[in-house]
């Protein structure tokens, strides 16, 4: 930011022409993103079924997010998913990246290719694969049976207690690789002298990790948390294909509620209010995480 404003503008540099270069992108952006989000805010103050005339509802749709049990549950489920999508991958990713960074193992390139692969596969495909694994006659139960743990087998996605954690584990599966690769890139930029200094002070591997490695990758941790928390809050495809919010509403999440209320229950105003709330929460979280990272690095 500060770098460029210092550079003097060369004489004769075109000024107005900048708007022409911006115009095409801005038109599409304004028509298909800015205007709709404005409309979402507008719709969220109405009680509307999508067909007949809407009725002014004031803040009712927002109040319902706090008071309506189903909606509260949906946001609660999102919090649970954050543990599976962000907290667990961060813990596992830190451990894996530290091992890889420390041990200089062979086959690092292959490992990185494999663990990052889930990121590029369409979520619908991921969901189909995991539905198969979790099915009553699926791979997980077969595995448990082979280990003599038949008592643990169940239809994982149809179980009131286990459906949400089962969806969460899928999140852990595809986010851990991203976090690991991100942290690994950060660790490779740590100057070797820092480690030598720590070793001269007699630090062991664990102390070295907490004194040198962890503080050096603060920025990467912030990025990893931002990406994974937002992914958790935006879980839609996975729930749509695996459980449709069920059984009961045990896996309902805000994104799915937006879709379900708008097109299943004809409560468009409520759907818009959830969408707007979700947007605000996402902005607040990414802003908060980045502020926190900025403060702690300086």
């Amino acid at each position: 930011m500060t770098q460029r404003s210092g550079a003097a503008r060369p004489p004769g540099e075109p000024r107005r022409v900048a708007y022409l270069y911006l115009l095409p992108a801005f038109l599409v952006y304004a028509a298909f993103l800015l205007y709709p989000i404005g409309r979402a805010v507008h719709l969220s103050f109405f009680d509307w079924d999508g067909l007949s005339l809407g009725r002014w509802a004031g803040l009712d749709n927002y109040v319902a997010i706090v008071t309506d049990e189903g909606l509260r549950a949906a946001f609660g489920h999102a919090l649970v998913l954050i543990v599976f999508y962000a907290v667990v991958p961060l813990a596992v990713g830190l451990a894996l990246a530290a091992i890889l960074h420390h041990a200089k193992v062979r086959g690092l390139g292959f490992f990185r290719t494999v663990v990052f692969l889930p990121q590029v596969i369409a979520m619908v495909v991921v969901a189909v694969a995991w539905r198969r694994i979790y099915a009553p006659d699926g791979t997980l139960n077969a595995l448990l049976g082979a280990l003599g743990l038949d008592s643990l087998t169940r239809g994982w996605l149809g179980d009131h207690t286990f459906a949400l954690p089962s969806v969460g584990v899928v999140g852990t599966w595809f986010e851990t690789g991203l976090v690991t690769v991100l942290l690994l890139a950060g660790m490779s930029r740590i100057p070797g002298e820092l480690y030598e200094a720590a070793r001269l002070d007699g630090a062991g591997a664990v102390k070295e990790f907490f004194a040198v490695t962890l503080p050096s990758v603060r920025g990467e941790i912030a990025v990893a948390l931002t990406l994974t928390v937002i992914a958790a809050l935006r879980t839609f495809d996975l729930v749509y294909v695996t459980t449709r919010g069920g059984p009961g509403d045990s896996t309902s999440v805000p994104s799915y509620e937006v879709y379900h209320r708008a097109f299943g229950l004809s409560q468009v105003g409520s759907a818009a209010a959830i969408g707007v709330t979700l947007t605000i929460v996402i902005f607040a979280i990414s802003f908060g995480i980045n502020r926190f990272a900025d403060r702690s690095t300086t």
Partner: protein
Amino acid sequence: MISRGERVANYVILSAFAAFALFPIVTILSAALGPADTGGTSGFGNFAAAWEIGHFGTYLRSSLLVSGFVVIVSVVLSIMSGYAFGTMRFRGQSALFYLFLLGIMMPSEAIAVPLYFDLRTLGLIDTFWSVTLPQVALSVAFGTFWMRAYFRASNRAIVEAARIDGASSWRILWRVLLPPARPAVVTLTLLIFMWTWNEFLIPLIMVTSESLRTAPLGLAFFQGQYTSGFTLLAAGSVIVATPVVIFYLFLQRHFVRGLLQGAVRE
């Protein structure tokens, strides 16, 4: 130095994790390539059957058209807007840029609902435009951010020299700045391609006719309707995932760099 035991332990941990990452993928692949659970076909016969019964040929065609349009339009518009933000100074510059930044984090579910009802009023629902233009808007937000970062870091001296030679801003962009920008443009192209190809919510809401169904949407419908066995579903999944995976395997650096750096704010 690392002891032998520690080294072995490290390899065990890493192999276990790699196996965990590959497990669902192997599940799908082995089901798709194995003998069909309904009998009859096996191996490549499964793909042919899925292609026929699951209509994946049609879905791939619309995915290709949708992705092609979104990628080309988004990349060209992003290059132009990124050029303006990255190399020129104008009134309202930072306010406009922050407006674009909003779109990077904007969840598509928040805009898709009002868009559906407005496009329905205009009679544009279930058209090519209703699927592509919202995705162009989302992609342009990231693309502007991405290309601006590139152009800001590019060599100013060459631009000044070209300007003194009397080159127009249009010529400077396409003839001077863009050729060395190829890696940045390739990364952007691949990311937008991946996001568009894998997008599910927008086609789900905007499309009702089968001829416009994209590949992930087709797979989700196929899963709902086709319940006799898993083989064809697995084959369909492989068909849907393969294009992006192939690009990933050959151009991995771009994907990793883009997905990691794209998130890093300055």
